[in-house]
């Protein structure tokens, strides 16, 4: 800057500071830290000859998640039976997972993987490893569609393996 203009610098900075705030474009926002998720859930035996692994019906999964960084996601969730007898079976659980790609302002596609522990109403304990191969959302994933997630579930007491399938999930992150 030429020396003759230097006295103007503080006034220019003051004028810039007093300008009214400009509305941010839709994508220019900060990363989300907390999330709400709801998804459809079904269970399938790993072997055709095996019996159905849980009480049959329509299950959902609803969860509250915390995203302390750009990849890690910790979630408290419940998987209740909705139909035919609401909440006659439900699994409450905790999961820890990661996003394969860092959540950032120009994100759109991602994948997630997590490990979870679930506890049934009658004390049934389950361990699950889940992969969601299609996660679609906008900048920083303030909204995300989780599609076609598959989990392999292990029941250590009955020594049985079965599948947990999530056709579609909707997440809102704040």
């Amino acid at each position, binding site marked *: 800057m030429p020396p003759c203009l230097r006295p103007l610098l503080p006034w220019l900075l003051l004028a810039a500071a007093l300008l009214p705030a400009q509305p941010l474009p839709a994508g220019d926002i900060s990363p989300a830290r907390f999330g709400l998720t709801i998804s459809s859930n079904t269970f399938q035996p790993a072997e055709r000859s095996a019996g159905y692994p849980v009480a049959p019906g329509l299950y959902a999964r609803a969860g509250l998640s915390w995203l302390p960084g750009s990849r890690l996601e910790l979630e408290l969730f419940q998987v209740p039976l909705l*139909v035919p007898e609401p909440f006659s079976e439900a699994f409450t659980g905790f999961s820890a997972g990661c996003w394969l790609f860092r959540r950032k302002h120009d994100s759109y596609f991602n994948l997630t993987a997590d490990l979870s522990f679930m506890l049934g109403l009658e004390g049934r304990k389950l361990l699950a490893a889940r992969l969601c191969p299609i996660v679609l959302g906008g900048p920083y994933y303030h909204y995300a569609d989780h599609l076609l997630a598959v989990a392999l579930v292990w029941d250590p007491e009955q020594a049985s393996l079965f599948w947990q399938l999530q056709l579609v999930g909707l997440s809102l992150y704040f």
Partner: protein
Amino acid sequence: MRAAALLLPLLLWAAPPARCLGEARPWSGGLFVESCGFAEAAFLPPAACLSAGLFLEPLALPAGNPAVFAGILLPVAPCQAENLTLRAGLALTLFDARLPWLLRTFYAALRWSPAIGAGLLYRLDGAGLRFTLAASPLRLRAGDAIFTLCSPELLLDQQAGTRGWGLVLFQAALFLF
């Protein structure tokens, strides 16, 4: 780089933001997929069901906009192919209300489009017929799609007696034509 090349077609397929339906309404129909279940063992055994079919929304009325739909419904968890069921009916969008405050979250113009509906379920093996009355309060219209969450249904028999209930947990209706 190779992973980016593999992902590029998917990103190109998914990235274009859709215009809000209602401003230009270029669509009149498409397909729907839904996840649902019913609490009436006499008609369908307890299971999570998957339903898919076609719908037609020929008019563009700002309120009371009708649509017809028809498809099939299959219990998938546990899978019971013998219980294949026809699903058809009428849905009436009550109104379309803009939700501009959701634009920064969803990056698309959304409209709240609650609907009510009536339809039938017919077991293709001839084992039963039920009429349904449905309400869809959580229904969002986003560009070329309509997303519905948690729609309860009432099941009636042929004498209009209540026989049970059902729930559509998720429905995605995508306009194709």
